[in-house]
């Protein structure tokens, strides 16, 4: 059985599993997010957020593996939300 790998439709990099914080409107507790700082979606997001909301923020590509939905995850900085990344995955060596 091969491991499921989700990739970012904007930059092609592998999405990282990410623990959804409390009170977000998403009920899925583990989602996948592109944390590539050079992802064009993330890079373009700064201008878009500035033009829409006059704020210095951007967003990252988010994928919900339960509902299959994708959407933006707003971030205020390059490192925001990175502490939610679930790095260690013992199951990786099983395959």
């Amino acid at each position, binding site marked *: 059985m091969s*491991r499921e790998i989700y990739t970012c439709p904007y930059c092609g990099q592998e999405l990282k599993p990410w623990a959804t914080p409390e*009170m977000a*409107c998403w009920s*899925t507790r583990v989602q996948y997010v592109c944390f590539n700082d050079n992802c064009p979606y993330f890079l373009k997001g700064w201008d878009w957020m500035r033009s829409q909301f006059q704020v210095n923020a951007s967003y990252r590509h988010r994928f919900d593996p339960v509902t299959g939905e994708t*959407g933006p995850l*707003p971030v205020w900085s390059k490192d925001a939300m990175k502490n939610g990344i679930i790095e260690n995955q013992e*199951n990786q060596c099983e395959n």
Partner: protein
Amino acid sequence: MRELENLKEHILKDYPRLDRSSQFTFACHKNVPCFNECCGDVNIFLTPYDIIRLKKNLRISSTEFLKKYTLSPFDKNLKYPVILLMMGDDAKKKCPFVGEQGCRVYPDRPWACRMYPLGMASPGDESPDLDREFYFLLRESICKGFNEDRQLTVEQWLDDQGINEYDQYGEYFKKLTTHRFFLEGGKLTPQKIEMFFLACYDIDRFRNFVFESSFLEKFEVDDVMREKIRRDDLEMLKFGYNWLRFSMFGDSTMTVRQSVYDSRKAELDAKMKKEKD
């Protein structure tokens, strides 16, 4: 989906389940080395009750509050609109309410700020193994509060933080957001999204709408209730939830006036008659 199962397990292992009587070690006060560090660069989603408390604290209208301090990120896949507290433009992306002495809206700070370092998982989340609510500790790496010498139970923390009032209004909101309409994949039309935004988040504009449009000609709302919602934001909020459940999901939470039915029927009869002729 195997990997997902493993991840869930991993999370449950990393965040052991706590109940209300579980103990943990934590304190946060002015003398921790990280004081105020956590009040920036965070996504704080505001609940309708949070907004009412905050706008009162700041003595401004909900409309002004939303405009000045929040944004509602656009996401075509979101089931309903959400409100995010707007962080500052400085290097630390500071929360607009953090000052030298700490939180400037402390008595009315949002639910999310009260809960930290506790996270909560409730049934209704997707995990099938979740039959009842539990708590877990979120350990942010910058947070030195865990090194403090203070033992307390989950219950004590929740009491200490005044979470109970928030929970009461949170329950009403949850009835909306976890409605089977959404669970069954229902999507709101743009018009209904606007209604949701208005009744849940912009309570002052919603009140104007109720009293200044033809709203009260359509629904039975007795004088006592009219007085209540005119004066009291929380009554207005509960009223709004009922209106939303009626208009978004067809729940029988509002009573349409007989006269509305009568005129609707007359219209239909006239139309039928015309078609027949």
